[in-house]
């Protein structure tokens, strides 16, 4: 590896220490990332907009602050990137759609502002599936991010660029958004860490909505520690988001301890490990191995039942598409040609559900939350595969592909529980597999502790995508 590659493969935690001690310059670090984006983003297509000038300007500002001893914290001088649905004042934010092709926000999203306040350097805006739905759709005219582990495969979505950029070392950390798994899915498919915190923990203000009651924001990073650092910066009450929680934000770094002895881990095998031909057996084998590792590390595995998981997919789709249709209806009626084929079809589906369908889906959602609440009185966290299948080839996706394989992530969007994906292995074809760990509402610390202990044991963060350099 070249020196520049070494810099881009530092974790946020490692870089933060070097920056704080003056052994690394934010300008040098930012230049290394911009050079790498120039070199690799052609084939990877992770970025929609690269902000070279402002990034270097911000890096020089961070350098001056650090030299003056005005240290803002562990994200000071760290180059990051945002999914292109986070509003950035004065910088085009498209949602990867022709509908918003020339949209330039006048105000930052709260998350954008908080990361800037923490001293991060914004490298640019990342590719995504149109309006955070569907799959890679060439008809919408925006970049289709590719999986750095094998560019013939999708990186997952909808935060496709966030997963690809994080895995390829094109940003030290990124933000994705998640309505049914769009943070954990790309994290799993790209062998990086991704967490959606409890609903209400991170502000949604200034983030293009897909489904108000299901949308979550969160980071994708190379390590669990890095996710904790980024979540720390963006979590907390925001009066601009009516669903924002006032609950105090704990110090997540305190949960980064390698100790899960006695921790009880629930495993709903009836759903996540069902004898179902639509669930990939290589994925299950990797996750079974991860569960054995958790047990060896001192966790106690407990089989648990959550019967309504069988209906979570239908409830999630009904709510998501109904709310999405309500938001996009005017454009769908007046300017349907501006939507890509895939999203136009799925959004239109949302207009076909009845009010009774939506209400029943919400009632099922509440009953599912009650079932999980009951289970979480007996276990600390719940573990499962993140995805039911490894990434597919680009030509293997269609309008309805993602809706007709079992969603292992969507249930936690319905319940609002915190859930993380941490890398747990590779299929025989070399495709990444993720372990999902979910917890009680606002108990991100237990989720981080379990994920960190596992990660430090298997150390998959030492493995980077081959063939990039």
């Amino acid at each position: 590896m070249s020196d520049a590659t070494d810099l881009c493969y530092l974790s946020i935690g490692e870089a933060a220490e070097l920056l704080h001690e003056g052994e690394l310059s934010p300008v040098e670090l930012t230049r290394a990332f911009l050079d790498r984006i120039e070199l690799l983003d052609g084939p990877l297509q992770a970025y929609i907009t690269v902000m070279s000038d402002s990034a270097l300007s911000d890096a020089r500002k961070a350098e001056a602050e650090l030299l003056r001893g005005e240290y803002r914290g562990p994200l000071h001088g760290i180059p990051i990137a945002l999914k292109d649905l986070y509003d950035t004042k004065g910088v085009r934010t498209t949602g990867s759609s022709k509908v918003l092709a020339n949209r330039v926000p006048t105000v930052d999203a709260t998350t954008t502002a908080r990361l800037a306040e923490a001293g991060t350097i914004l490298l640019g805006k990342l590719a995504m599936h149109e309006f955070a739905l569907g799959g890679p759709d060439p008809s919408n005219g925006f970049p289709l991010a590719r999986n750095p582990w094998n560019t013939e495969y999708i990186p997952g979505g909808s935060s496709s660029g966030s997963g690809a950029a994080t895995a390829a070392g094109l940003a030290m950390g990124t933000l994705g958004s998640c309505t049914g798994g769009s943070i954990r899915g790309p994290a799993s498919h790209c062998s990086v860490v991704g967490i959606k915190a409890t609903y209400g923990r991170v502000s949604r203000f200034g983030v293009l909505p897909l489904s108000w009651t299901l949308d979550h924001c969160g980071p994708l990073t190379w390590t669990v520690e890095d996710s904790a650092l980024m979540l720390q910066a963006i979590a907390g009450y925001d009066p601009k988001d009516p669903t924002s929680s006032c609950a105090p934000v704990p110090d997540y770094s305190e949960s980064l301890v390698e100790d899960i002895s006695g921790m009880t881990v629930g495993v709903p095998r009836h759903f996540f490990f069902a004898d179902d031909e639509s669930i990939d057996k290589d994925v299950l084998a990797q996750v079974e191995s991860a569960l054995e590792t958790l047990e060896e590390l001192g966790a106690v595995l407990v089989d648990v039942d959550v019967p309504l998981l069988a209906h979570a997919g239908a409830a999630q789709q009904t709510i998501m598409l109904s709310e999405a249709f309500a938001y996009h209806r005017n454009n769908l009626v007046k300017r349907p040609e501006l939507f890509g084929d895939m999203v136009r079809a799925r959004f239109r589906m949302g207009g076909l559900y009845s009010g009774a369908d939506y209400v029943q889906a919400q009632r099922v959602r509440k009953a599912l939350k009650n079932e999980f609440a009951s289970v979480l009185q007996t276990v600390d966290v719940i573990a499962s595969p993140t995805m039911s299948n490894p990434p597919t080839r680009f030509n293997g996706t269609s309008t309805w592909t993602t809706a007709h394989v079992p969603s292992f992530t969507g249930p936690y969007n319905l319940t609002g529980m915190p859930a993380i994906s941490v890398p747990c292995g590779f299929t025989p074809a070399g495709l990444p597999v993720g372990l999902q760990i979910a917890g009680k509402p606002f108990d991100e610390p237990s989720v981080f502790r379990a994920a960190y202990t596992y990660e430090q044991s298997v150390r998959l963060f030492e493995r980077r995508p081959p063939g990039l350099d």
Partner: protein
Amino acid sequence: MAELNELSMEDFNVLCARAGIVPTDEEARDLKGMWNRVLPDLTALHAIDLGEADLAISFEPGWDSGSEAS
């Protein structure tokens, strides 16, 4: 709900029109195919006996009148 499986193309177009959707003939055929794939799951959703389960929409009558002023 089960009857919706048997919708004619004409009736399906009425459903689309009610939503304000005006697909082309080809798009309408594709959309109907997708809708037919959803219906069994939706029917199952309605078949769940939730008893008296309350949707529990919350309503907070108080608000900051200053921020709501038009």
